[in-house]
Each structure stands twice: as structure tokens, then as C-alpha cells.
């Protein structure tokens, strides 16, 4: 199976639960499980090659110029993690199916879980660090969704936000580190970076890259002092805690350290930073775990501690330590997931997970007791279980590593860590299961059905089998360790008995000390209180409060609800940017002579200038302002005609008409006068407006007096309009052919705008707006005759002519000024005239188009025309044309572009009519009720 398919499978699986949840949560879980199992089978099928030391690769170039490609690589390390992710994922899906309560939205849960699974699988299989970063952030996001799954609980929301803030911030920092690393290595492919190890370590940027990358890894893997988010993440449903926050996601940081181990490790910086952080985390997490009474919190802190252990091992920098680290990843995942799932069972069956309220469950839940005890003993490092093996290897390495000038420092501290670890493991067993049975469990406990115990049982089976026969795990662990250190490790032996070594003595001390610690727990209570006080994430809270207050202050300063202020700021910034550009770069010489000005044009210009200058002074009289706008629009259209733009002139003048009609309809309701504003304000705005006008005018003047700095692409369009597009009107050919895709998008936008208008008007026709609409009384005297006979007769006579003109403009559009846009507007005006002259009721009774359908038909026709090109084997919207002779007519040209233009035409008619008709319906409704009121009152 291709790696690409393996990576995609969980994401496809994420879609299944959403669809299948209607058939029940069993089906949804089965769908997700099927995708997971298929991906797992794909990975397992590659194992023989991986064990042979090969790597399976798959590659898809994405943005090769940026060094970004979807390249995946399955080697030993990736295989170990992929098996953990998919294997435990399968168990978790099965367990969650029975764990979730009836009220929980299970489909969403499985979708989030599969999303996470895909992201995590992406991390471990990526061979490109940029791609890895994308999956990395995706795991943070899906973890956020899963922690906040019970979104009605405040602790779930807070925990989700905290986890996201810490891990995503770390991820952002790591992006910078990865870019630096890629810059040093000259490649973003991990397989290349790993080979460039010596060059990277010698680079002056090495400390920077190392620091940034470590921050990302440490936040993700909950290393001290960033560990505090992990216990809060326990607000998630228990399957999530088992899966994300112990077995897989928190190991992403560990994975990354292992992945980049050949490139980054081996320097004093690496050794001291990574080892120390790991060591402190191990001791800290273990100490806090010792005093927790919430089962999940205890397990969370123990997870922190064990992650610290693995990080420390990677810090040592020796091959044997890397082997121990990889082995412990496998062992920890199995026993810790089993423990979390057992904790879930206990909470499910007893109604609490507080060990002070438990105890004596040994006889009531014998199966759970057996499973949890085996897993906890493995965590404690008891022989014949898998936790013992890797802990023994860790102690052996620690005893031979010089730290702070001596070998005994690490030996002592790691033994202490193992001792406390044994202590909390024993405490968990004793306080939960041993002791007297109680009378006051919240609910009567008993062992669960197979749905809940099967998953932990299988995990415990791994714990025991690997513990008894470590050689079974050897190929996988050796291949993974080999991939980490970049050497053949297939010669390693994993065994229980190494002889009488220092590590054996340290192990014995740890187990005995752990048992002693358990008996002394009451006397050490003061230490627990002190630790609890220290571990409060006060710094995080302070940072968050500060950031929140700062953000609120900033947005309040920028956005205080005064729109004029925001717009003024916008204009000011634009002015400043323009002014800076003007000042910092010189202007070339003027290369174009001015065109002469005929007197008629000067008159038109004068009309435009006077109207525009007058508008700001007169605008408070809104009807008059509308008249001035009409004059300006007319002058602009005439200007277009004079300056060789007949298409623009036609469009401008028709749009002008419908815009004015629209505004008049709105003014029917709105006040006819604007309120006066203080002089100072007006003066300020006038100053700003004048500056903006001067700037824009100067810019366009400078442009027009100079030729193009570089040849433009216009010549191409002129040359190919006829030969390629089959039309002589170049503007129309650009619209329907060269840039047909843009036009297609535009008519869709226009259609959406019309639908928005319809929806807005529809809202106003409902309560409570409707009541206000009906209560509205006209503030202007009404005309005596709403539908004057002259107007009615004229518009009805003109209608067929206007429609004919529309058809004419449409048909000639490809070769002469005109086309779908203009024709649509002309036809709309002809129809709107009927509304205006004869009234809405009369017009609607006769115009039986559904404007929505018209818009839809227009977009559909345009789209189908484009698709038609596919059947000729050409790209979307490639046009074709030919010449046709129909008997009564002359030979004429038929281009597919005409069909496209028909789509444009229909959409424009539909959109304009829908907009205007929506507004008319408002007036009609208000007037109708007004008349009724007149009759009754």
C-alpha cells in the first residue's frame, strides 16, 4: 500500500462517522475502525522491508520551489510510532464505542479522533519538516477539540485552551527553528538534514535552531516547566487521555527529538539541556504524582515523569540510551494506555476516580484489578513485565554517564526517580483495590462488559508477553533504534537477566524504597501540600490575563463602534503610505503629450466638477443629492464614449438607472434629510477628503502622462481576439473568453448578492421588523394617482421595443459594443419600468418568472458551457466557434461564448430584478397596510 494512501486513510475515516452516525454509533465506530485497520495493515505489510533496514518512501511534489513537497518515509522509527498510533487507535475506537454516554455526540467524537489519528500519522511518516509542521499543528488543533469535547464543562474548555496555547505556541516557535535548520542544511527533507549533521552542529546558527526546536518539542511532550497543560487536559474523555495524552500525541516531541537525533545530538548544549530538562521533569512529575488522589491526575503526572525519562535518555547521546528510549516509548504506551483505560472503567463503574473514596475493589472488580495491577507493576518496574526491561536499560546507561563531573550524580538521581515511580504505582494499586470494601461507593461497582475490558486486556497482554519474551519485540525496537542513530542495530539483544549489574542493584533499591515510601505516605503529606502550591501555573495565568487585557485594549482603541473613525484611520494610513511612496521614489520624465480638449468635452467636465463639488454641501437634502449623483454618472458615461470605451458607457448608463431606482425605493423609507453635524468635524473630514482627492488625482495624472514601463499583455488580447475568441469586440471577448473564469466567478457573486438582498428583505417582512414596517407612515405627501395613465400606457408600449433592443444588444455583443451584461441591464430596466408604472401587484401577476431560478439558470448555463469544453478535450471554458447558415438569414457566426454570455445575461436580469423586487415588496407591504388603515380608520 502506498504511504500516501496510508496517510490519507484516517482522514477519509474521519468522514465516515459523520455519515454513518445515523445508522448508530456502532456503525460509526466500525467505519472509523475499518479505515484504521486498513492503514495498520498497510504499515504491517511494509514491515519485512523495514526490518531489513530499508525505508519505504513516497513523494508528491507540491511547491518544489519553496522546498515543500509531500514526501513520506517509513523507516523503523516511523513504523514503531505508526503501529502504536494505529494499533492503540483501533483499541481506543472500540473502547470509546462503549464508554461514551448516550447523550454524548458520538459521531463528532469519532471524527475528531480520526482527524487526530491522521495528523499524528502524518507527523511520524513525513520526510519533509515543513509538511511535518502542518501535521504538528493539526494535532494541537484536534487535541483542542478532543479536550473540549464536553464543552459544557468549564474545566474542559479551560483545559482545551491551555493545551492549545502551550502546544501551538511551541509549534510556532518550532516553525522558526525548522526554517533555520532547513537553511543550514540546505534542504527541508529530513533524510537530507540527517546526513548534514556535522555541518549543522558546526554552524553558528546551531544554538538558535536547537533552542527553538527544543521549545517546540518540550511544550508538546509536557516537559518541565511546560508540563502543566497535561494534567489539565485530563478533562477530556478517558479514551482521549489514554490515546492522545499518554500513548501518542505527547510523544510527538519525543519523536521529533529522536528523528533529528543524528543532526542535533552529540554536542554539550544538547547533552546538558536535554538531559537536565528530562531529569527534572522525571523527578518533578513523579513527586507530584505521589500525592495526587485523582486517578487520572496521578496517571497524568506519571506520564509527565516517564516522558521526562525518555527525553533524558535521548539527551545522553549514546546509541544504547537511544535504544532504551525507543523501547520505553513502546512499553510506556502499552502499560499507560492500559492504566488509563482501567481508570476509565473504575470511574464508569463506581462513579468516582478519587482514590480516597475507593479501595477494596479487589473482590468487586477482579478482572479490572488484575489488569490494572499488572500494568501498574510494569510502571513500577517489577521484573517479568515490560516496564522493568526498559527501566533497567535506563538505569544501566545512567550509571555510566558522566554528568556534572561524576557518574554517581545521574545514578543517584535516576534511582530516586525510579523509587518514587515505584511508590506511586504501589500506592495506586493499594488505595484503589486493596483494603476494606466500602459501603459508600457512589454506584455499586462490578466488572464491566467485554466492550470495556477487551482493549486494556490486549494492552496488558503486550505488557506481559514483551516482559516475558523481550526477543519478540527485538526486530521492531532494533529497527526503530537503528533509524534513530542512523546505524545498523540489528545485533542488539533484549533480555531479562543481564547478570549482577549496578542497574539490578539500583532497581532493587528503587522497588524496596518505593514500598517503604508507601508506608510513610502519611508522614510526607506536608511535602505534597508544598508541591501543590508550587505547581500552580501562575505564570501562565498572568501571561494569559495580560495578553487578553492587552488585546482588549488594542481592539477597543481601534474599534470603538464609531465607523467614521475607522474609515478616517483607513484613509489616513492610505495617505501616509501613498505619501511615503511619492516622497521616497522619484518620477520619471513625462513621455506622453496631453490630448486636446474640444469645447463640448470641457462643458461636460465642468458639469461633473460642479456637481461633485456641490454634493458635499448639498448632501443633506437626500433627493437632491441623488439628482447630483445621476448627473455625475451621466457625465462619466459620456466621458467613456469620448475616450473610446463604448462598452463601458453602455454599462455605466444602464447601471446608473437601476442604482437610482434602487436608492429611490430605499429613500421611500429613510429620512429625506440628514442631520447636521458640528462644523469642526466637517472641517476635519473635508481636510482629509481633499488630501485624499489630491493624492489620487496626482497619481493618475502622473500615470497618464507616462507610457507603460514594460510592455503589457493587452497586445496579446488584441491580436488573438478574432483568431482565438471568434469576436471582434475585444472587451467582450476578454469577458467571455480570455477571462471567462473571472466572469463566471463574478456572475456567481452577483447572484449571491441578490440572494443576500432577498434574504435581508425577507427578514424585514417577518416579526418583529414587520410590526415596525407596518407602523411606518409616509413622511411625504402621496401623489393623487399612484399609477398615472400616461406613464402606464407609455411603458407598456415601450416594453416590446425595449426587449427587442435588449436582444439586439445581446446578439451583437460579440462583435460590437454590447453583450450579456448590458443586455441584461437593459431588459431589467424595461421590466422595472412596469413595476414603477403599473405597480407591484400588476407586474407580478404578469411577470411569472422566478428570479431565483433565473439566477440559477444563468450560472448553470455558463458553467455547462465551460464544462462543454471538456468533451472536446480542452480546459474549462475554452470556447469554440464556427459559421452557420440558416435559410432565411444570412451566414452568421455561432460561438460557444454566446452561450456563456447568455448565462451572464440571465444572471444579470435575475439578480437586478430580485434586488429591486425585494425592495418593492417592502414598500408594497407598508403601503398596503397603510391603505387598509385608511379604510378602517
Amino acid at each position, binding site marked *: 500500500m502506498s504511504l500516501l494512501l496510508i496517510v490519507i486513510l484516517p482522514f477519509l475515516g474521519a468522514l465516515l462517522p459523520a455519515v454513518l452516525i445515523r445508522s448508530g454509533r456502532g456503525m460509526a465506530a466500525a467505519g472509523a475502525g475499518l479505515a484504521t485497520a486498513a492503514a495498520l495493515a498497510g504499515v504491517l505489510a511494509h514491515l519485512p522491508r523495514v526490518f531489513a533496514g530499508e525505508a519505504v518512501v513516497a513523494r508528491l511534489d507540491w511547491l518544489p520551489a519553496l522546498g515543500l513537497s509531500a514526501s513520506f518515509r517509513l523507516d523503523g522509527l516511523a513504523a514503531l510510532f505508526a503501529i502504536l498510533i494505529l494499533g492503540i487507535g483501533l483499541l481506543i475506537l472500540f473502547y470509546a464505542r462503549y464508554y461514551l454516554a448516550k447523550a454524548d455526540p458520538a459521531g463528532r467524537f469519532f471524527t475528531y479522533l480520526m482527524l487526530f489519528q491522521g495528523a499524528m500519522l502524518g507527523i511520524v511518516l513525513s520526510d519533509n519538516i515543513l509538511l511535518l509542521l502542518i501535521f504538528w499543528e493539526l494535532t494541537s488543533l484536534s487535541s483542542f477539540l478532543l479536550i473540549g469535547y464536553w464543552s459544557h464543562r468549564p474545566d474542559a474548555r479551560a483545559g482545551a485552551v491551555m493545551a492549545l496555547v502551550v502546544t501551538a505556541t511551541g509549534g510556532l516557535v518550532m516553525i522558526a527553528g525548522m526554517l533555520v535548520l532547513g537553511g543550514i542544511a540546505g534542504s527541508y527533507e529530513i533524510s537530507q538534514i540527517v546526513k548534514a549533521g556535522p555541518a549543522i552542529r558546526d554552524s553558528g546558527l546551531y544554538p538558535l535552531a536547537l533552542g527553538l526546536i527544543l521549545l517546540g518539542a518540550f511544550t508538546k511532550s509536557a516537559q518541565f516547566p511546560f508540563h502543566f497543560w497535561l494534567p489539565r487536559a485530563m478533562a477530556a474523555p478517558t479514551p482521549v487521555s489514554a490515546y492522545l495524552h499518554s500513548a501518542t500525541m505527547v510523544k510527538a516531541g519525543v519523536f521529533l527529538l529522536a528523528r533529528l537525533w543524528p543532526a542535533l545530538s552529540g554536542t554539550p548544549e544538547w547533552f546538558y539541556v536535554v538531559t537536565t530538562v528530562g531529569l527534572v521533569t522525571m523527578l518533578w512529575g513523579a513527586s507530584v504524582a505521589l500525592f495526587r488522589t485523582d486517578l487520572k491526575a496521578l496517571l497524568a503526572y506519571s506520564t509527565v515523569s516517564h516522558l521526562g525519562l525518555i527525553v533524558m535518555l535521548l539527551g545522553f547521546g549514546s546509541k544504547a540510551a537511544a535504544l532504551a528510549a525507543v523501547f520505553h516509548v513502546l512499553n510506556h504506551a502499552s502499560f499507560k494506555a492500559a492504566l488509563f483505560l482501567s481508570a476509565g472503567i473504575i470511574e464508569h463503574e463506581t462513579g468516582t476516580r478519587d482514590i480516597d473514596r475507593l479501595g477494596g475493589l479487589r473482590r468487586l472488580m477482579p478482572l479490572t484489578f488484575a489488569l490494572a495491577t499488572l500494568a501498574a507493576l510494569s510502571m513500577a518496574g517489577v521484573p517479568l513485565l515490560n516496564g522493568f526491561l526498559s527501566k533497567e536499560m535506563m538505569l544501566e546507561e545512567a550509571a555510566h554517564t558522566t554528568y556534572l563531573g561524576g557518574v554517581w550524580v545521574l545514578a543517584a538521581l535516576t534511582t530516586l526517580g525510579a523509587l518514587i515511580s515505584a511508590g506511586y504505582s504501589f500506592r495506586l494499586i493499594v488505595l484503589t483495590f486493596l483494603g476494606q470494601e466500602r459501603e459508600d461507593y457512589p454506584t455499586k461497582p462490578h466488572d464491566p462488559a467485554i466492550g470495556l475490558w477487551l482493549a486494556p486486556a490486549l494492552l496488558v497482554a503486550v505488557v506481559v508477553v514483551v516482559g516475558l519474551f523481550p526477543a519478540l519485540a527485538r526486530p521492531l525496537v532494533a529497527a526503530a533504534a537503528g533509524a534513530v542513530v542512523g546505524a545498523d542495530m540489528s545485533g542488539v539483544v533484549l533480555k531479562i537477566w543481564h547478570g549482577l549489574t549496578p542497574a539490578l542493584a539500583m532497581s532493587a533499591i528503587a522497588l524496596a524504597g518505593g514500598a517503604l515510601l508507601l508506608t510513610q505516605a502519611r508522614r510526607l503529606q506536608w511535602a505534597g501540600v508544598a508541591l501543590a502550591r508550587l505547581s500552580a501555573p501562575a505564570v501562565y495565568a498572568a501571561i494569559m490575563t495580560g495578553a487578553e487585557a492587552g488585546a482588549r485594549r488594542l481592539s477597543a482603541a481601534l474599534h470603538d463602534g464609531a465607523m*467614521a473613525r475607522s474609515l478616517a484611520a483607513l484613509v489616513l494610513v492610505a495617505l501616509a503610505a501613498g505619501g511615503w511612496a511619492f516622497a521616497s521614489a522619484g518620477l520619471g520624465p513625462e513621455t506622453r503629450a496631453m*490630448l486636446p480638449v474640444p469645447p463640448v468635452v470641457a462643458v461636460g467636465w465642468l458639469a461633473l466638477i460642479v456637481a461633485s463639488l456641490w454634493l458635499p454641501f448639498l448632501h443633506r437634502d437626500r433627493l437632491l443629492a441623488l439628482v447630483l449623483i445621476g448627473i455625475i454618472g451621466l457625465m462619466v458615461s459620456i466621458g467613456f464614449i469620448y475616450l473610446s470605451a463604448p462598452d463601458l458607457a453602455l454599462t455605466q448608463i444602464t447601471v446608473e438607472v437601476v442604482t437610482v431606482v434602487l436608492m429611490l425605493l*430605499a429613500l421611500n423609507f429613510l429620512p429625506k434629510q440628514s442631520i447636521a453635524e458640528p462644523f469642526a468635524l466637517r472641517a476635519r473630514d473635508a481636510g482629509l477628503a481633499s488630501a485624499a*482627492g489630491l493624492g489620487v488625482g496626482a497619481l493618475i*495624472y502622473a500615470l497618464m502622462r507616462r507610457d507603460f514601463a514594460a510592455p503589457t499583455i493587452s497586445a496579446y488580447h488584441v491580436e488573438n481576439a478574432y483568431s482565438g475568441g471568434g469576436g471582434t469586440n475585444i472587451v467582450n471577448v476578454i*469577458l467571455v473568453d480570455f477571462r471567462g473564469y473571472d466572469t463566471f466567478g463574478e456572475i456567481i457573486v452577483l447572484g449571491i*448578492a441578490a440572494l443576500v438582498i432577498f434574504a*435581508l*428583505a425577507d427578514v424585514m417582512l417577518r416579526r418583529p421588523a414587520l410590526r415596525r414596517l407596518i407602523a411606518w407612515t409616509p413622511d411625504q405627501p402621496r401623489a393623487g394617482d399612484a399609477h398615472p395613465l400616461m406613464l402606464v400606457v407609455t411603458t407598456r408600449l415601450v416594453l416590446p421595443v425595449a426587449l427587442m433592443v435588449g436582444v439586439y444588444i445581446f446578439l451583437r455583443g460579440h462583435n460590437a459594443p454590447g453583450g450579456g451584461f448590458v443586455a441584461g441591464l437593459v431588459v431589467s430596466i424595461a421590466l422595472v419600468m412596469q413595476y414603477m408604472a403599473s405597480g407591484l401587484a400588476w407586474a407580478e401577476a404578469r411577470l411569472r418568472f422566478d428570479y431565483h431560478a433565473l439566477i440559477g439558470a444563468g450560472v448553470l448555463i455558463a458553467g455547462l458551457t465551460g464544462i462543454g469544453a471538456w468533451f472536446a478535450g480542452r480546459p474549462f471554458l475554452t470556447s469554440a466557434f464556427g459559421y452557420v447558415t440558416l435559410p432565411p438569414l444570412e451566414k452568421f457566426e455561432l460561438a460557444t461564448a454566446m452561450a456563456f454570455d447568455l448565462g451572464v445575461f440571465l444572471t444579470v436580469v435575475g439578480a437586478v430584478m430580485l434586488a429591486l423586487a425585494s425592495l418593492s415588496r417592502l414598500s408594497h407591504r407598508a403601503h398596503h397596510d397603510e391603505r387598509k388603515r385608511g379604510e378602517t380608520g
Partner: protein
Amino acid sequence: MEALVASAVAVMTAAGVYLILRRQTFPVVLGTAMLSYAVNVFLFATGRLVVNLPPVLADTATGYTDPLPQALVLTAIVISFGMTAVVVLMALGAFIASGNDDIDLGEGRE
């Protein structure tokens, strides 16, 4: 001619900016309409001004004006109608809902 077009753009921009800085909806709508004119003419003029050379292929033509800005402006004119219509409806809805056509929220008014 260039000076006339430039001054027209300048005056229309100034009027448009002044109007969008008003505190009531209708002048702001008028202002956006004015700014649309100004921007459309601006875009059109970036193709440089030419008289009597429409972009329609003909055997007798001695040259053609730049068709590309015209195509851009044509769609811009149509879209600006759609935008104006939406804004007008929003203004109307706000007026019917609140009883006045002030544009600012209650707090922070100058």
C-alpha cells in the same frame, strides 16, 4: 484632456471620502457610489487616454485603445451595483430595526 480626467477623479474621490465619513447611512451609501465612479475612472485611465480608437476590430481602424482595463472596469461597474444594493438593504434594515439611520454604535460616538 489628461488634466481634466485627473481633476475629475480627484474631485470625485474627495466628495466620496467626505461622504463616507458622515454619521448616517444614506450619505455613506452615496459616498461609496462616488468612490466607485472615481475608482472605475481611475482604473480605466491606467490604460492611458485615446480618442476614437474603440477596441472593436475593424479593417479601417488605425489602432486600438487598451481593452484590458475596460474589461476590468466593466465587471467592476456591475459588481459595484451589487454591492450598493446590499449596502442599501442593510441600511434600510438597520433603520427599520432601530428607528434611526445613525451609523455608529451608541458608545464611542464623537
